């Protein structure tokens, strides 16, 4: 680690550092980056679970997660459940589906997903 890197990391915000870490982590999978995701086109993307929300909507809960691959973010909704086994903060999943646009976000509704094992790329 040269002096250049030290200086670079010192001037970077936490978010940029995290984005760099995630990009390094997912580059090997060779999937579509989230920044290039477009609504209503089938896509296969991956990302780390950054946020989980449980929405107790009128007795039918839904779980929303936000994944991030360093280039961008997408929301994944699993309706009718409070929790999906294996999906936790910091875990990585591959999502296969068609996103739709909801406000400023792209949302996958109940897509096919693959859990990536922890600690492996």
């Amino acid at each position, binding site marked *: 680690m040269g002096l250049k890197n030290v200086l670079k990391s010192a001037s970077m915000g*936490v*978010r940029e550092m*995290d984005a760099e870490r995630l990009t390094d982590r997912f580059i090997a999978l060779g999937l579509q980056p989230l920044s290039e995701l477009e609504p209503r086109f089938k896509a296969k993307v991956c990302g780390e679970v*950054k*946020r*989980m*929300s*449980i*929405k*107790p909507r009128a007795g039918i809960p839904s779980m929303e997660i936000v994944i991030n691959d360093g280039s961008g973010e997408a929301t994944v909704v699993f309706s009718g459940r*409070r*929790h999906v086994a294996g999906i*936790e*903060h*910091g875990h990585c999943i591959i999502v296969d589906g068609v996103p739709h646009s909801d*406000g*400023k976000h792209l949302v996958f509704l109940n897509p096919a997903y693959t859990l990536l094992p922890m600690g492996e790329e």
Partner: protein
Amino acid sequence: MVEPVVALIAIGVAGSNTLMATTTRSNPLKRFFIGKPIATSEDGHQRLPKKVALPVFASDAISSTTYATEEILIVFMSLAGAGVAAYSRLVPISILVILLLIIVVSSYRQTIFAYPNGGGSYVVSRENLGRIPSLVAGGSMLVDYILTVAVSIAAGVAAIVSAFNGLEPHRVTLCVGFIALVTLANLRGLKESGALFAPPTYLYIVMLFILIGYGLFRVFVQDLGPIPHEDTFSQELLGGNNSITLFFFLKAFSSGAVALTGIEAVADGVPAFKKPEPRNASTTLIIMACILGSSFFGLSILAQHLQPLKDEEGHIADTVLAQLAEQVYGGRNIMFFLTQFATFAILILAANTAYADFPRLSSIIAKDNYLPRQFMNRGDRLVFSNGVIFLGLASSLLVIAFGGIVNALIPLYAVGVFTGFTLSQFGMLVHHRKHKRPGWVPRAVMSGFGAATTALVAGIVVVVKFTDGAWIPAVVIPTLVLSFIAVNKHYSRVRGFLAPTEGYSAPFRTHTVVVLVGSVNQGVLQAVRYAQSLRPDRVIALSVIQSPTDRAQLDADWEKYNIGIELDTVVSEYRDLTEPILNRINELDDELNDDIITVIIPEFVTSLRSQWLHNQSALAIKARLLFRPNTVVTSVPIVIP
């Protein structure tokens, strides 16, 4: 031991608002020192008859006789090295000073009649000269009041030290102690109560005239000789035979001119007099000027014959007045001690005058938005507490920095006074020209002449004493003026920004509420209920978790307590708590353009003793959110008895 007490009081007063908010019981420590609060409605205005007004307003001016002669002597003896020749110059200088006194007093008489509501230099220049001159006057007077305290207390302590030479090493401690006492007394709202002021001032005047009268009697009738000076240091001082140059003459004159400090007090305080105010005030001013002038002149004659000695560094501890009294009364007897005590008392009162003036002036300036608003706050006892505390601290610092030596402080003193005089009189000149009342021409000429004279004196003081310390006010006053303007600019900017434009409506339509959650407890449940009671468009519980087990636990509790709001969990990659919360709030804010966000933080309130164990992260979050636009932070307190 005195300083910590001062600090405690300062905290007690400054912190009063926050402390009082949480507990209805008053702070006993503060009650003990400050006394019980006075209601605003009880702020009766006490009108003073002349015989009480004289001591109240004149103590500052008359007290300057205690050091003015001495200061002239120091310039000649110690700085110019003129030796015995110095004594023959005392009377000419004092005549010049008295002439100056007559000019300034006649000018102030007009101010009294023109501004019966109180016409300090600041007010007069504000009305007539405009912004910058008034600020210069205000800054000068503020600096001057601080110096009045420092100089008077230092001189008062010098009187004590002259009477009890053993106290010499504790000079600074004594000074700070007395400043603390006076500050404390003023926080209690001692104001200008005549009962307290009258006896010491009259005692001093009487003692001074006895000293002068008896002294002159002994000199001229009983042939009392000069004070004997045996030690080598004194001989050296007396042996100087340099001729007195114009420079030193002017320097001595500017030292003597400090005798005029404080005569503006009467003009400032006209409304405090009994009716008819201007007439009574003007009579009081003239009586004061007569006492001041005659005693100063008398002391100069006495000093010329008795030849007391004083050096600039304070090797000779006794004041000139003490030396004169000792010689006249033939030793340290009851009369000597009575004189010293009266001197001390009037000097303390002189300092106290500044405590009435400084807070009042600073509150007027603050009201005009040139000083922080805090100077307008009145404390429990209806005094402008912050001004009082500020004055106490500033003068203590000065006394400490200059080692409590009067002579070192004097060069700083006269600049502000004469700047104030000049602007006030110049303001009066403009006032006369503007209103053109019958017979205004001679009055305007008088004011103009006064302004020119005092401006000349101010100039002389700055030039001849620049290196002795006159540069300090010459730097401080402009700096003060600049900061007044900066403060004003800020306040105007804020006011301009806040003023609603035509057809203004609040820019937010939707309301998002974020409840910060650690783990589910009573506090969180209350906070959630509170959030729902706000009827927001969206309510979210946000939790920063450390591990999946945390999330599972939270999820389980959410179901168990049937909390009906969305639960967001984020993980902090880098163990920082505030960063993820701020990021999430930023995201929420980005989603809608017309949104206002309320962040609700459940907080535990325990006793003062253990409060620091809680809410440290809440404090950090609040601090970060304070500067965020469109964000409301609300604490939902859970009081744990």
